[in-house]
C-alpha cells in the first residue's frame, strides 16, 4: 500500500477517535480506546514515513488529491486539497510518530485523573490529525486548514483546565497569537500564490517571485510560523499555554507542534520561496541566538516546573533556528555541502529536542500527578519516592544540558561544527557574526545546564519542602513505561546518532541537493561529519569508556579499599538544622545568575526588609524580575489596540443623521475615485 494512503487512513482513524472521545465523560473505557487508537494511528504514520525515508522513490513523490474544498470554484479551477509525501514531510512525520505514541502511552495512565475527560479526549486525536495533515499538505488551502485545526484543537486542550484563572488568560493569549500567526501565514501564501492564484505548492515552486515579494514572504513566515515555534520576541504565548495544558498535551505541544512550525519555516524558506540572499539566514540566525539566550535566562528565574520546561523549548528552538539560518546563509553563498551540514545539525536537534522535551514534560506530569504541585519551591526529595521518574527526568535533564553520550550533545556538537565552517563565508560581516553566534550558543549551552541542575536538583533532590512532596508516590506502570521508552530512545540516539543522520540525509538531498557524504556509510560508530577533516566523535566509545571505567573503579575501590557505609545525620559544618526551609530554594540557587545576567536584561532587583534586633517579625525578601519583551512589545501593542478601539467605539453611538452622512461621504468618495481613474 502506498505510504500516503496509509497516512490518510491513519488520519481518518484519528478523526473517528475524536468523535468517540466526545463520550468520554460517560464511559471510562473510551479513554483507553481513544489513546490506543491514537498510538496505533501514529505508529502507522511513523512506519509509512520510515519506509519512505529508507527507500525514497527516484521520481516525484506520490500525491493524493481529495475533493474536499470550497463550494465555489472560480475560473473552473478545481478547489481540492492536495497531499504529498516527500522527504521533508516524512522526516517530520517520523518525529511526530516517535514522540506521539510514547506520549499517548504516558497519557493512558496520566489522564485517569482528569476531571472532565471529554474535553481532552475529543480534541487530542484532532490535534494529532491536524499536525499530520500540516506535514503532508501540498497546497496552501490544505495547509492552512490543517494549521488552524491544529491550533484550535490545542487551544481547546489548553482550556481543559478552564476552571483556573491563569489557564483562561493563557488560552486567551494563545488564541490571539495563534490567530495572528495564521493571518501572517495566509498573507504569505497569498503572496506566494501570486496574481495567478494557483495555490498548489507545485505551482508555487514553478513560479517566480520578485525580490520584494520574497522578502515579505520571508518576514511573514517568520512572524507566523516563528511565533508558533517560539522565537523571541513572539514567544510570549508559549510559556503561558504549554504549562497550562495537561502534561501529555504540553509534551506534544513542545515536542511536536513546535517542530511542525519549524517544518512550515523550512518548507516555505527552503522550498517554496526559491533562492534567497544570505540576509534571510542572518535574520533567522539572529532570532535563534536571541531566543536561545533569552529563553534559558527566562527559564532560570521561574518557579513553575512546566514554565521552566516551556522556556527551555524556546531556547532549543533558537538553537535549531541557528542551524537553519546557517544553512540559508551557506546556500545563499553557494556553499551547498556546508549548508547540508548546518541543515542536518538543525534537523537532528529538532528530533533530539522532541524526544527529550516530551520525556521531561511527561516526567513533570508524573510529578504533578503525584504531588498536585507544579511549584518547585514546594517540592523536593522526590527521587526517593519516585525513583523511575527521577531517573528518566535525569536522563532528559542531562540530555538537554548537552552532556555526552546522550543525544542532546550530538546535535549541539554538530551545530558548533557548522558554525566553525562559517569561516568559509565570503562576507566579512558574516565572518564576525559567526563569532558572536558561537559565543551566544556557548552561553546558551552553559546556562541550560544551570537551568536543568536547578530543575532536577530542587524537585528531586534535597529534603521535601511540603507535605505533598513527602507523600508522593510513583506513577502507574504505563507512565513509567512511557518514560523509560523515551529515555532509552535518547540514549540510543546519543550513542548511535548515525541512525538518525541516515534518515535526515534524504531531506537535505531534496532541499539542498547534497547530503553528508562522510556520515552513515563507513561505520555506525564514528561520526565524521566533514569528509577529509579529522573531526570525529563517537558516543559509544565515550559511553563504554565512562561506564566501564566507573565499574572498574568501583570494583577496585570496594575490593581493595573499603565498601562500608553508614547513614548518619547530615554534617552541615556541625550545625545541622532538621527544618527543610534551611536548604537552598530555587530562587536562592538562581540568585548569582540573577545578579550577573538579570540586572541588565530583566531589571532584576532584590529588596530585603530586615527588622531590627528584638523585633519578632520575620525578615522579608522581595525579588522582582521584569519581562522586558512583554513591556516593550506586547503591552504597547495591546494598549495601542485598546486605545484605538476605544476611539472607534464612538461609531456605535452615532445618530441616524451621522450614519447617513458617513454613507453619503463614502459614496461620494468612491464616485470621485471612479471619475478620476476613468
Amino acid at each position, binding site marked *: 500500500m502506498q505510504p500516503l494512503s496509509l497516512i490518510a487512513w491513519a488520519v481518518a482513524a484519528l478523526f473517528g477517535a475524536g468523535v468517540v472521545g466526545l463520550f468520554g465523560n460517560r464511559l471510562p473505557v473510551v479513554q483507553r480506546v481513544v489513546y490506543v487508537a491514537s498510538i496505533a494511528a501514529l505508529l502507522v504514520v511513523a512506519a509509512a514515513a520510515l519506509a519512505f525515508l529508507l527507500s525514497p522513490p527516484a521520481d516525484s513523490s506520490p500525491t493524493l488529491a481529495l475533493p474536499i474544498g470550497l463550494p465555489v470554484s472560480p475560473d473552473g479551477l478545481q478547489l481540492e486539497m492536495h497531499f504529498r509525501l516527500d522527504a521533508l514531510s516524512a522526516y517530520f512525520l517520523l518525529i511526530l510518530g516517535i514522540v506521539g505514541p510514547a506520549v499517548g502511552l504516558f497519557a493512558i495512565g496520566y489522564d485517569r485523573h482528569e476531571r472532565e475527560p471529554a474535553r481532552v479526549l475529543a480534541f487530542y486525536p484532532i490535534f494529532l490529525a491536524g499536525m499530520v495533515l500540516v506535514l503532508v499538505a501540498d497546497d496552501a488551502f490544505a495547509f492552512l486548514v490543517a494549521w488552524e485545526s491544529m491550533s484550535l484543537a490545542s487551544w481547546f486542550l489548553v482550556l481543559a483546565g478552564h476552571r483556573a484563572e491563569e489557564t483562561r488568560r493563557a488560552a486567551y493569549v494563545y488564541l490571539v497569537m495563534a490567530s495572528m500567526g495564521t493571518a501572517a501565514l495566509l498573507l504569505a501564501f497569498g503572496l506566494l500564490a501570486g496574481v495567478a492564484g494557483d495555490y498548489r505548492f507545485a505551482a508555487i515552486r514553478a513560479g517566480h517571485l520578485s525580490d520584494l515579494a520574497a522578502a515579505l514572504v520571508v518576514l511573514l513566515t517568520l512572524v507566523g510560523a516563528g511565533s508558533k515555534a517560539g522565537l523571541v520576541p513572539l514567544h510570549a504565548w508559549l510559556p503561558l499555554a504549554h504549562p497550562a495544558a495537561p502534561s501529555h498535551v504540553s509534551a506534544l505541544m513542545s515536542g511536536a507542534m513546535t517542530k511542525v512550525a519549524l517544518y512550515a519555516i523550512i518548507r516555505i524558506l527552503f522550498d517554496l520561496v526559491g533562492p534567497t540572499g544570505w540576509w534571510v539566514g542572518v535574520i533567522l540566525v539572529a532570532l535563534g541566538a536571541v531566543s536561545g539566550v533569552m529563553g534559558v535566562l527566562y527559564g532560570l528565574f521561574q518557579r513553575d516546573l512546566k514554565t521552566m520546561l516551556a522556556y527551555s523549548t524556546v531556547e532549543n528552538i533558537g538553537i535549531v533556528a541557528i542551524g537553519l539560518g546557517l544553512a540559508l546563509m551557506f546556500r545563499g553563498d553557494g556553499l551547498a555541502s556546508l549548508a547540508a551540514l548546518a541543515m542536518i545539525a538543525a534537523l537532528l536537534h529538532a528530533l533530539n529536542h522532541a524526544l527529550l522535551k516530551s520525556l521531561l514534560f511527561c516526567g513533570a506530569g508524573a510529578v504533578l500527578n503525584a504531588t498536585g504541585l507544579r511549584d518547585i519551591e514546594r517540592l523536593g*526529595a522526590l*527521587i526517593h519516592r519516585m525513583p523511575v521518574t527521577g531517573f528518566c527526568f*535525569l536522563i532528559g535533564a*542531562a540530555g538537554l*544540558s*548537552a552532556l*555526552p553520550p546522550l543525544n542532546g550533545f550530538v546535535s549541539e*556538537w554538530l551545530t*558548533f*561544527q557548522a558554525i*566553525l565552517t562559517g*569561516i568559509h563565508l565570503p562576507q566579512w560581516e558574516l*565572518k*564576525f557574526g559567526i*563569532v558572536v553566534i*558561537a*559565543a551566544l550558543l*556557548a552561553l546558551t*549551552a*552553559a546556562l541550560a*545546564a*544551570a537551568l536543568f*541542575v536547578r530543575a532536577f*536538583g530542587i524537585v528531586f*533532590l*534535597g*529534603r521535601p519542602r511540603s507535605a505533598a512532596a513527602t507523600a508522593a508516590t510513583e506513577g502507574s506502570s504505563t507512565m513509567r513505561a512511557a518514560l523509560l521508552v523515551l529515555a532509552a530512545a535518547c540514549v540510543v540516539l546519543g550513542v548511535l546518532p548515525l541512525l538518525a543522520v541516515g534518515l535526515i540525509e534524504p531531506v537535505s538531498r531534496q532541499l539542498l541537493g547534497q547530503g553528508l557524504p562522510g556520515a552513515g556509510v563507513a561505520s555506525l560508530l564514528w561520526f565524521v561529519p566533514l569528509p577529509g*577533516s*579529522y*573531526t*570525529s*566523535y563517537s558516543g559509544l*566509545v*565515550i559511553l563504554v*569508556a*565512562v561506564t566501564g*571505567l*566507573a565499574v572498574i*573503579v*568501583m570494583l577496585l575501590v570496594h575490593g581493595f*579499599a*573499603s565498601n*562500608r*557505609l*553508614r*547513614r*548518619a*545525620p*547530615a*554534617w*552541615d*559544618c556541625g550545625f*545541622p538544622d532538621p527544618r*527543610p526551609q534551611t*536548604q*537552598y530554594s530555587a530562587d536562592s*540557587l538562581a540568585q*548569582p*545568575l540573577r545578579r*550577573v545576567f538579570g540586572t541588565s536584561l530583566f531589571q532584576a532587583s532584590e529588596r530585603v526588609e530586615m527588622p531590627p534586633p528584638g523585633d519578632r517579625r520575620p525578615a522579608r525578601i522581595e525579588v522582582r524580575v521584569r519581562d522586558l519583551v512583554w513591556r516593550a512589545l506586547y503591552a504597547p501593542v495591546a494598549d495601542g489596540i485598546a486605545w484605538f478601539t476605544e476611539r472607534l467605539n464612538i461609531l456605535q453611538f452615532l445618530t441616524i443623521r451621522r450614519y447617513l452622512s458617513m454613507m453619503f461621504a463614502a459614496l461620494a468618495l468612491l464616485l470621485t475615485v471612479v471619475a478620476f481613474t476613468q
Partner: protein
Amino acid sequence: MIAAAYQLLHLLLMLAAAPALTGLVRKAKALLLGRRGPPVLQPYRDLWRLLRKEAIVAESASVLFRVAPYLTFTAVWVAISLVPAFSTDLLLGPTADLIALAALLGGARFFMALAGLDVGTSFGGIGSSRELMFASLAEPAMLMVIFTVSLLVGTTALAHIAETLLATSVGLRVSLGLGLVAMVMVAIAENARVPVDNPATHLELTMVHEAMILEYSGRHLALMEGAAMLKLLLYLSLIACIFAPWGLAVPGADAHALGIGILAWLAKMIVGGLLLALFETSIAKMRVFRVSEFLGAALLLGLLAVIFLYVSKGL
C-alpha cells in the same frame, strides 16, 4: 596496538601523576609563604587513608549522592585520557574532540552540582549556585579559545591540533597569546584556585568547590578529591598540548621519542605547577561577584582572539 598500549600507559600515568602535581603546588605555595609545608607525596597518603575509611552518608542523601563520585571521577579521567600528553598516538584519539572534552568536564560539574543539592543543606546549595554561575561564563570562554584554535588548524580533533601546531611554525601569534591568557583564566576558575576560590578553606563565605563536596567522606571524598586533582592536571596538560606542544611524540615514533615526550611533559607539568603556586600566592581572592567580571574578561579575550585570527590569517 601501539595506540592501545600508549593509551593504557597514558591512563595510568595521569592517575599516578595527579596527586603529585597537587602536592607540588601545595609545597611550593607553602615555601613561598615562608612555611615548610607538607611533603610532596602527602596527597597519596591522604587519598589512601580516605579510601580505606568508612563512608558516612547523610540520611537524606539519595542514590545519586553515592554514584556521583564515581561518575565525576571517571568523566574527568576519560577526559584527561583524551588529551595527548607525551604522544598523539592514542587509541581514543579519534574521539578526542575538544568540544567533547569540554562537555565531559561539564558533565562532571553537572553531577557535582547535583550532589551538592542532594543532601539538602545550605552549604551544598551555596557551592552549587556559585559553581553554576562561574560555569555559565567559564564554559563560553573555553569554547571561544577552542574556536580560536580550531579555526587556526581547521578541526576540533585534539590529536590533529597538537600535531599541526607542533609541525608548522606558527610563530608568536597574537591570537594564540590572547587564547592562552583566556585559557589560563578559565583554568584558574574551573580548578577552584585563588583568586576565584580557595582550595584550602572551609569558610562559608569563600567556598565553592569545597562546599559542593562538604558532605562527602571516606572513599567518596577520595574520589571527589581525586577528580579535582585530575582536573588540575588536565588543564595544565591541555594548555601544554595546545600552546607548548614541543616534545610530543607523533604516530610512528620510536621508544626514544616516547621517552623524550614523557620527560618533556613532566617538565611542563612541574613548571606549570610552580607558576600556579607563584600566581596563587601573589594575588588575593576576589569577591564572588567580581569573579563574574573576571570570567567575562576571559570570555571577551577569547572573542578578541578569534577576531584577531581573522586579521592575521588574512582572510
